[in-house]
């Protein structure tokens, strides 16, 4: 039971917090993100939820830690990436973002953004107008996170959606993922050269994934 050669390196990792209101699908969003990373991108991930007694309407959070190495951080206090789908969540959790971390907000709901460096996309509006259903706001958000940070590939996200949702729901959700991903990519392209240079690389390129 004693390990022969314990691996003492602490692998790079990214901690993501998805926050909003109960019923916005944050638990599913976290699960898709973790599944894409762990199953389809060969990384490791731990996904956990934090929730209150309310099934709908209370504060809701889903957290994912992704790393090419072992993940032993089952709960984090500080996050590299913070998604906020409601103003209340943004106000409450902005302080949990590390310095220089990425804030991603649904600008349909979050009107007071605490930093000028946030990725702001009108996710709910995009869901209603382009996918015809507000329930896919969560997957637009997941797409946007990955389009911006590149921590998980678009292919992995699509595969995760296809494997975990009912077949008839897949097309709409895949569309939402792609929509969010493309919107975030465009946002990065439109950034000034200087600002783009400040964005941290979250892609785990060059790191060896452990099986």
């Amino acid at each position: 039971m004693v390990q022969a050669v314990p691996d003492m390196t602490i692998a790079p990792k990214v901690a993501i917090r998805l926050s909003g209101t109960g019923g916005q699908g944050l638990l599913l969003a976290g699960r898709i993100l973790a599944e894409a990373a762990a199953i389809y991108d060969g990384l490791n991930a731990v996904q956990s939820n934090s929730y209150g007694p309310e099934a709908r309407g209370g504060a809701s959070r889903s957290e994912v830690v992704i790393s090419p190495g072992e993940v032993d951080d089952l709960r984090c206090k500080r996050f590299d990436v913070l998604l906020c789908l409601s103003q209340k969540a943004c106000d409450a959790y902005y302080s949990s973002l590390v310095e220089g971390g990425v804030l991603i907000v649904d600008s349909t709901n979050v009107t007071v953004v605490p930093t000028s460096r946030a990725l702001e996309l009108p996710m709910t509006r995009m869901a209603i107008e382009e996918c015809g259903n507000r329930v896919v706001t969560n997957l637009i958000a997941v797409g946007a996170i990955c389009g911006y940070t590149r921590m998980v590939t678009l292919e992995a996200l699509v595969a995760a959606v296809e494997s975990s949702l009912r077949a008839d729901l897949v097309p709409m959700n895949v569309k939402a993922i792609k929509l969010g991903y493309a919107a975030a990519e465009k946002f990065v392209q439109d950034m000034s050269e200087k600002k783009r240079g400040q964005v941290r690389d979250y892609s785990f390129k060059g790191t060896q994934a452990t099986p």
Partner: protein
Amino acid sequence: MSIKTGVPLLLSGNEAVAYGALAAGAKFYGGYPITPSTEIAEVMAAELPRIGGKFIQMEDEIASLGAVIGASIAGLKSFTATSGPGFSLMQEHIGFAAMAEVPCVIVDVMRGGPSTGLPTKTSQSDVMQAKYGSHGDYPSIAIAPSSVMECFTLTVKAFNLSEKYRIPVIILSDEIVGHMREKVILPGPDEIEVIDRMQPEVPPEWYQHYADTITGVSPMANFGEGYRFHITGLTHDVSGFPTERSDETTALLEKFRNKENHNTHDLLMVDEFCMEDADFCIVAYGSVGRSARQAVKMLRQEGVKAGMIRPQILWPFPKFPVENMLERVSHVLVPEMNVGQLRKEVERLACMPRGMIQGLNVLDPSFITAEQIHDKAMEMISKQK
């Protein structure tokens, strides 16, 4: 099992417990809904009917464990899952299962207490209840998984120990381990060792349900298979009938005690991490074991010879490895999400100066991080200098 084996899956700890139970051969689940354990019941409600098993939602947790024991007496591997308040209610029948020597598994996904406490938040405060919760002297086995994979493997282990020793086995999971999702690759049926209860080899007229054997464990016939015998929660003799004779009552309690005392090696399961040259030992279990592992790495990077002992079987307490460790190290830190329930067990074995064994007892439900353990360790070391 309707779940894939041999390929990576993203499962929650509760799901892994449920599939572990199925892999171990569970055919009966009786339970009552309670956060944060309910997912186990939900998986069993879907899976058991597919394999000819039975799921029933009972009227409360007392009834749940009653039905589980009944089904086990009739020959099915049976289990239930609950959390603090329900675990309190089950104590009555944990005692019965121990007394009547009925194999069964009880999963306690720990949440904040006492009483209704913090239903959606984590805790490790049922450790002592898992050992001493029911009245009387009875043997206890409690297992604490710290990853989703262990939720699977240790559940199989729990069933095996339960069947092998005819004893209720408790799995002390917690809200974090139960609800988090991780990548696992489940082993196929050929890769899993499954132990079934020993069947009698004697004809019915010679059968004694609690026969005295060399191993201390009596072969067990099931109801309805031609062996007609009596089971009671009263103190009983080897044939199962009530007795008040002092030689027989003493023998029964000795038999219970010997289940632990004569099988210490088999009931020892400890994960030792970097302990070969360690001078600073962290004793942690369950979800906190993960943070402790990370903390050991952080301390090692700073030149501290840290190591970790993580009991996977909490009860019986792993006396020998802990005693052995206490002779070698100069500091022990026991981080727990309670007021120090397991630390006291470590202290009982120690002859160390005051302050060398300390706890990190986080009572707010937000978990203990590796950083907190690291910082506490550094504080202990610097104070000594």
